């Protein structure tokens, strides 16, 4: 069974590769390369796979999942300029793909226990663009 909790944070970022020239960055990243940065209301859906506990009837108390998400992700990312304030984005371009992978890495050690496994991380940069990341697995349908 898969359970999902959704959280939101607002942050700014800029997408550019310092090894590339100004025109190359502009061509690759378009408006997202504006060096002053811009922001999004990110929406993150975290899914956990496991079986319901025979006593509680829950895979994991969603309240507990919410606390982990707030502590490990929202408190670090929310109202920050990702490139300047949230490692590894001082070195890694904060694309939606890299944000999804970073969130996966932050959450996995806290959630893979008690027979439960982190199943997928979905990050919406806008309502029209989102990325799914499932660690070493290929995301299933």
């Amino acid at each position, binding site marked *: 069974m898969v359970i999902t909790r959704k959280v939101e944070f607002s942050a700014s970022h800029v997408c550019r590769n310092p090894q590339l020239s100004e025109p190359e960055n502009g061509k690759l990243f378009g408006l997202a390369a504006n060096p002053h940065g811009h922001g999004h209301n990110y929406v993150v859906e975290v899914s956990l796979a496991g079986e319901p506990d025979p006593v509680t009837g829950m895979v994991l108390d969603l309240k507990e999942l919410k606390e982990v998400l707030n502590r490990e992700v929202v408190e670090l990312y929310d109202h920050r300029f990702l490139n300047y304030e949230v490692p590894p984005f001082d070195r890694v371009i904060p694309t939606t793909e890299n944000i999804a992978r970073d969130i996966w890495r932050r959450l996995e050690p806290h959630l893979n226990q008690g027979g439960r496994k982190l199943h997928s991380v979905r990050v919406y940069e806008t309502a029209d663009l989102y990325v*799914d990341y499932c660690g070493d697995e*290929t995301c299933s349908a």
Partner: protein
Amino acid sequence: MFRVTRRYEFAASHRLHTAQLSEEENRRLYGKCNHPYGHGHNYVVEVSARGPADGTTGRAVDTALLDEMVARQVLDRFGHRNLNAEVEAFERVVPTSENLAVEICRSLKAHWKKTFPAEWPKLEKVRIAETPRNIFEIRADEIE
């Protein structure tokens, strides 16, 4: 490996009617979708592609390239059209959302390598919401 999904919308009209059935059978089968002058929807199309993040850009899919392809193959062809009367693919095929999903997926698959010649990203699936309640999804490997 990442799955990147982009969401698009277009508005179009259609009528569900097949020449293989009688007028009465069409009415019974398709109900109000068979009304003679057709009707319209705001279709929402989600296109998903799969791939690793590129070492230079940190992205799995260049969404500007995807947008261009979808504009040409989907939005320009279907947007503000009568699917039955104006889209060649539906001259003989009933424009149900199942068939629309097949046509969109087929067309994106056929043009994919022109836009994305490298091994990655690959087209994974197409999902169409005809209305928020009626949703149709097809994987690229389900069709030729």
